[in-house]
Each structure stands twice: as structure tokens, then as C-alpha cells.
């Protein structure tokens, strides 16, 4: 193949799809670059081999390498000159192989894509137009899309970063600081289960089943003891009648009475009458002595 043929073909394909101003801009560098690029190795390749290795490792993949070549040669990405790019790309890939750089399969895939585009550009104009238009279109779209992301990655790298550009302020708590202890939650069922456990273990409750009545009596017993205890400082006794709350009705009176009897039976309180038919007084045993 000759340069002129390819050049004409390329231009022919582009004809009608590109504004003429752009066309003119592109024609001149094409001819010039092709004369250089095709017969010789690309200028880029005059790099010391060890430095080359470093550079090659820097590429993120075939798209990145292609972009590098395009930018380096100041090609227009929208009007991609396939022939010189393919040549340069292949030269790089060969070099990568030569220095036994671990070459990702993607590089070879790209090489075949470039070769295919190149061969399709060589087909007569009509044959090409019957297909989906410019065979380079897909590659150009991919290059553009990749370049946008490449730039976005660089932008993200430049954002202020915690631990690199900004540092978080950290202040110690005062020496007297103690954390708040959150109370443990207890479920009523746990409480019942605990008691069932005790019963099961000891059978201690065998003879006195706890019933509602006895519970309310027990509660009243505790209440009476509290009342006597708080009254203890001042009066040392409480009037028997003061322990009853009439608003509670008959049931309440019965419960209180049972509670007092139970307390007396268990020697937890004493009941005194200092004079015959006098007022009945209730007090804690200590005070009765």
C-alpha cells in the first residue's frame, strides 16, 4: 500500500461528514507525519530502554497508550489518523514484548482492532458507506470517554484530602470524664423466668403459692413498714387508723388489715394500746422495747 492511496481514501471517507475548515487543517500534518512515521520508528521511541520500561508501566491500558500517542503527536482525536497511530502503537507493543514486560491481552486486542479499522478504511468508499459509517467512530468514542474519566481521576486526586491536605481536629476529654452508663434493659418475663428458676431449683415455694391476694398484702406490708420507718424519727408510732385509706373501699381496708396482721405475726411491727379503749398505735419493734 502507498501513503497517497490511504491518505486519499481517508479523506474521501471523511468528506461530507466534516466541515471543510477542519479538513484543511488535517491534510497538511497528515502528509508530513506519514512521511516520518511510517518509514522510521516514532520519535517517541528514542528513549533509553530502562527509562522506556518505566514509561510503559505507566500506561493504564491500550486506550491510555493510544491517548498518549495522540496527544504526543498533537493529532486531532476526532479525525484520528489511523495509519500512523497504528504504526506507533505496534512499535510500542513490540517493545513491550521485547523487554518481556508483562503484556496485558487487551493491548493485542487493541492492535487487531486498529488493524481492522485500517483495512476497512482501505475499502472503496461505497462499500464503507453501506456499513455504519466511519469505522473509526467507535474507537474515537471510546477514547473520548476514557479521556474524560482519566481527567476526572486526576481531578479527584487533586481534591483536598483528609490526612493529606486537611487534618481533623481532635480534642481529649477532661480528666474527670466518665462515660454515661446506659442501664440494662430487663424484660418482665425475664423476672418471672428467674423466679420460676428459683422455685424449680429449691421447691421452696411449694407450700405457699404466691397469689394475687397475698401479693397485694405483701405490697401493703412493705408500704406500712416504709410509713413507720419515715415516721420513726418524729413520732415513733403511727395511729392504727391512719394506716387505712377509706377511699380504697372495703377491699383496701381488708388488705391493710391482713397486712398488719401478717406483720405482727412475723414480728415486724408491734401494736400497742396505752390505755383501755384508747387509740391503737402501731410502731416498729425497736421502739416498743
Amino acid at each position: 500500500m502507498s501513503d497517497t492511496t490511504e491518505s486519499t481514501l481517508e479523506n474521501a471517507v471523511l468528506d461530507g461528514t466534516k466541515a471543510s475548515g477542519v479538513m484543511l487543517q488535517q491534510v497538511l500534518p497528515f502528509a508530513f507525519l506519514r512521511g516520518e512515521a511510517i518509514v522510521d520508528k516514532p520519535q517517541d521511541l528514542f528513549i533509553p530502554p530502562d527509562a522506556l520500561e518505566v514509561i510503559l508501566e505507566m500506561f493504564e491500558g491500550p486506550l491510555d497508550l493510544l491517548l498518549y500517542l495522540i496527544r504526543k503527536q498533537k493529532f486531532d482525536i476526532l479525525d484520528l489518523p489511523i495509519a500512523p497511530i497504528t504504526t506507533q502503537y505496534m512499535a510500542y507493543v513490540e517493545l513491550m514484548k521485547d523487554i518481556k514486560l508483562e503484556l496485558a491481552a487487551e493491548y493485542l486486542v487493541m492492535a487487531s482492532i486498529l488493524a481492522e479499522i485500517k483495512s476497512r478504511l482501505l475499502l472503496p468508499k461505497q462499500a464503507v458507506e453501506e456499513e455504519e459509517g466511519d469505522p473509526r467512530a467507535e474507537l474515537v468514542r471510546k477514547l473520548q470517554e476514557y479521556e474524560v474519566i482519566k481527567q476526572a481521576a486526576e481531578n479527584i486526586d487533586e481534591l483536598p484530602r483528609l490526612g493529606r491536605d486537611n487534618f481533623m481536629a481532635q480534642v481529649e476529654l477532661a480528666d474527670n470524664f466518665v462515660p454515661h452508663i446506659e442501664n440494662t434493659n430487663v424484660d418482665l418475663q425475664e423476672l418471672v423466668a428467674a423466679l420460676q428458676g428459683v422455685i424449680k431449683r429449691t421447691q421452696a415455694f411449694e407450700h405457699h403459692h404466691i397469689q394475687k391476694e397475698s401479693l397485694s398484702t405483701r405490697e401493703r406490708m412493705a408500704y406500712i413498714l416504709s410509713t413507720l420507718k419515715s415516721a420513726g424519727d418524729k413520732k415513733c408510732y403511727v395511729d392504727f387508723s391512719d394506716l387505712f385509706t377509706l377511699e380504697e373501699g372495703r377491699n383496701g381496708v381488708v388488705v391493710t388489715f391482713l397486712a398488719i396482721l401478717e406483720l405482727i405475726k412475723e414480728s415486724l411491727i408491734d401494736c400497742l394500746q396505752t390505755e383501755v379503749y384508747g387509740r391503737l398505735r402501731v410502731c416498729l419493734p425497736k421502739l416498743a422495747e
Partner: protein
Amino acid sequence: MNDRIRFKDIDDDKLQRLVEAALFVADKPLSVQSLKRDFLIEYRVSNLKIRDIILAIQAHYKGRGVELNKVASGYRFQTPTELSEDLAHLYKEKAPKYSRAILETLALIAYKQPITRSEIEDIRGVAVSSHIIKTLTERAWIKTVGHKEVPGRPVLYASTQEFLDYFSLTSLEQLPELVPMAELTGEPSKV
């Protein structure tokens, strides 16, 4: 080893910003020496000047949410002691779950009140540690309601209003009835 250092001038305003920033980001107290060595190495600044700046910062933070304190190894920002109680909520710790011993003791006090410690021990068959009584008292679920007139006059325990409130009960009567032993053990209940 011998990079030549050209000292730069720094105005008080910038110096104060820098010292303040350094003290806030450092993970340990900073002395005047370490401030100079680690953060101000490029600048022409005297120890005296740094001390002045620290005084200015200390004055600025008086009465704010943090204060600059001098401790043995240098200066560091800390929260004022007055705020500790309010900050405590930020670092809540979950208390460990109550042990079976605590729950059984609480259940016995609730159902068998008033009751002495040794009565609880008799039923449970093991000693009731002071820790258990302390935990329940601190939680305000139990209280003492007097002494039993037996040798040693042991304290009598009962449940509290807070206990009822916590379990959303209006009275002890609302405590669940215990399932009779027979049902628990799976034996036919005697009628």
C-alpha cells in the same frame, strides 16, 4: 543531612493559626520545643514568642467548648471539666446484662417483700453478694423498709415505685402470676 534552611518571617496572626492548628491535630501534648521543631522549623521565631502565642490562645478559649491546658509534657486542648457530665452522653457505655443472680434476687424481693437478705439466701441456696444489692439499689428498684426483729436485726427489702414504673405496672398485683410448680415440671397438677 545539611539541607540549608532559610528561615522565613512569620507574623503573629499566622503564627497563632499555625500553633493552634498544630495543637489541635497533634495526638499528644506539644511542648514549646516540639512546636518549634516539628511545626515551625522553617520560621524565625523565639521560644518567648511561642509562649506568648500560647498565652493568647489560652485566653481566647476561656469559657468556650474546649480549653488549652498545660500538662507535664506540654500543652493540649481538652474539654473543660464542667462539661464532662453533659458530654458523658456522647460516649454512653452499655452496662453488662444482669446476671441470673441479680434477676433472681430482684424477683424474690418483688414477690416476697418485705424480705431479708438471709431469707433470699435461704431460698436461692447461695449467698447474695453486696454487689447485687448495690446494683439494684442504685437502679432504685429496691429499698430498705425497716429491720426484722430477729437477732442481728437484718434489713428488710421491698420494691420501689421506680420498679413498678419501669415495668409499666400500677401495682405489684399486676406482676404476672407464677405458674404452679406442677405445670412447670410437667406433672399433672393436683386439684
